[in-house]
């Protein structure tokens, strides 16, 4: 039971580069979410997806792009990384149509933009 996995766990990149963070879940959950965690802000929602090919913006979407061609994958792309995107990124999934909306989180990706 792999659950929800994120890769890479750590990433260092330079400003202006494109970087993609991967998220994969094995539960066939319909909903998937991307959050970022910064000191003093808790977790803030970047983007979410209700199903394959259905995505929507969260609280802080600027500078990010998502796609969801398959139910199990929800990659997050920083098209031109900036230092302000240095953060810890968490992916989560849930299945609210089969019970309560309990979100389960991956281990996170720590991204540093130099």
């Amino acid at each position: 039971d792999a659950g929800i996995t994120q890769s890479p766990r750590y990433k260092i990149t330079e400003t202006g580069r494109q970087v993609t963070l991967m998220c994969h879940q094995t539960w066939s959950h319909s909903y998937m979410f991307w959050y970022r965690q910064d000191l003093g802000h808790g977790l803030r929602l970047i983007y979410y997806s209700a199903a394959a090919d259905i995505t929507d913006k969260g609280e802080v979407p600027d500078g990010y792009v998502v796609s969801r061609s398959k139910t199990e994958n929800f990659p997050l792309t920083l098209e031109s990384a900036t230092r302000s995107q240095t953060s810890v990124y968490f992916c989560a999934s849930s299945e609210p149509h089969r019970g309560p909306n309990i979100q389960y989180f991956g281990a996170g990706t720590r991204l540093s933009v130099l």
Partner: protein
Amino acid sequence: GIQVEQSPPDLILQEGANSTLRCNFSDSVNNLQWFHQNPWGQLINLFYIPSGTKQNGRLSATTVATERYSLLYISSSQTTDSGVYFCAVERSADSSYKLIFGSGTRLLVRP
């Protein structure tokens, strides 16, 4: 949007002590979860508790939805309880299943 406030922001306990963490929210909710973020950064679900009381070992939680707050009780604290505790809510009027997080309570349990 909905505001989620957690208190206290920081808490230091001696091992064996009890504590109460509070989460206030500014709008009606149909989902409230408590999470523990361990020192390695992993977010662990503790409770799904939109209303009522639940207990799991030394931890229990109570949500009074009509008064818009939730409490997390930790009894006989252990060093492994250290970390950050987050409350997250889903606003009733929002059909997108998004969670809004509080800023967390950072707990340090000393041996």
